[in-house]
């Protein structure tokens, strides 16, 4: 009697995905450990995190953010903005302004700085590049009002590429990851991602596993 192979999860509906055991094998092959987090949350391996429009059997294998060093610019700007009112008052720039206007003006300035820090952090923290066992999800928040979410299933992508260069990119090992698909929106790009070589290798391995499963009819 032919052995019935239960493969409901792998072929249910139109979602082809890599099962957990195979994901674990792939992670082991590329030298990663499930649950590993580094770079202040910019590089997370199988964090168990939910995300928008996640499918039933979908799990995030890699959750990536821009390398934390890319935040240096806004952090320095925020520090300068924090000290600026005090410096200007000390040099007498506002000597002709009434004290009550000066007080309200300073409070308003610090509120703006708070909003700047919050917006900068949010744009970094919630702009994520997720490699799941089914697809690639790229969520970009360009500012508070503009969000772009792109998806590409692993069985539709072509060979992913990565670029890593520049002083900071080489020193801190971050760069761009580009994944091309045959769809109209042909490229998904992750910017300033840590360890882009590992990311590309993982995407390739998962894609190959999915292809093997399809060939085996699983």
């Amino acid at each position, binding site marked *: 009697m032919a052995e019935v192979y239960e493969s409901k999860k792998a072929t249910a509906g139109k979602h082809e995905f890599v099962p957990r055991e195979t994901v674990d094998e792939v992670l082991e092959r590329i030298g990663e450990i499930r649950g590993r987090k580094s770079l202040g949350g910019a590089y997370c391996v199988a964090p168990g995190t939910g995300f928008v429009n996640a499918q039933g059997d979908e799990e995030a294998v890699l959750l990536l953010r821009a390398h934390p060093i890319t935040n240096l610019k806004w952090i320095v700007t925020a520090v300068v903005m924090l000290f600026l009112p005090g410096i200007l008052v000390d040099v007498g720039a506002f000597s002709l302004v009434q004290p009550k206007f000066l007080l309200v003006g300073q409070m*308003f300035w610090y509120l703006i700085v708070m909003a700047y820090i919050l*917006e900068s952090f949010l744009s970094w923290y919630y702009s994520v590049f997720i490699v799941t066992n089914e697809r690639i999800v790229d969520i970009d928040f360009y500012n508070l009002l503009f969000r772009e979410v792109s998806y590409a299933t692993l069985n539709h992508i072509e060979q992913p590429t990565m670029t890593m260069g520049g002083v900071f990119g080489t020193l801190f090992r971050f760069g761009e990851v580009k994944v091309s698909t045959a769809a109209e929106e042909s490229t998904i790009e992750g910017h300033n991602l840590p360890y882009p070589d590992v990311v590309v290798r993982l995407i390739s391995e998962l894609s190959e596993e999915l292809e093997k499963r399809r060939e085996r009819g699983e």
Partner: protein
Amino acid sequence: MIYNAEVLRGLVNISFGGVVKWLVVGGLLMYVAFALVVVKQVGVMTESVESDVNPVVKALSWIHLVAALVLLAAGIYIL
């Protein structure tokens, strides 16, 4: 009659400081509207990705809104 005269005197005697005050208050009112948008958008962002940081970020956005409202009140009563 006396009340109308007082109102007219009040309108004629608008000082430069008074104009600046209401311009500042108008700006603060717009900033409160911006703070409301921030609260809304933080909600959208926290729905995109689950994280332990989400409650903290939401709290900060509300603190920012409350601070904007307090500043608006300060602008009306202090200036």
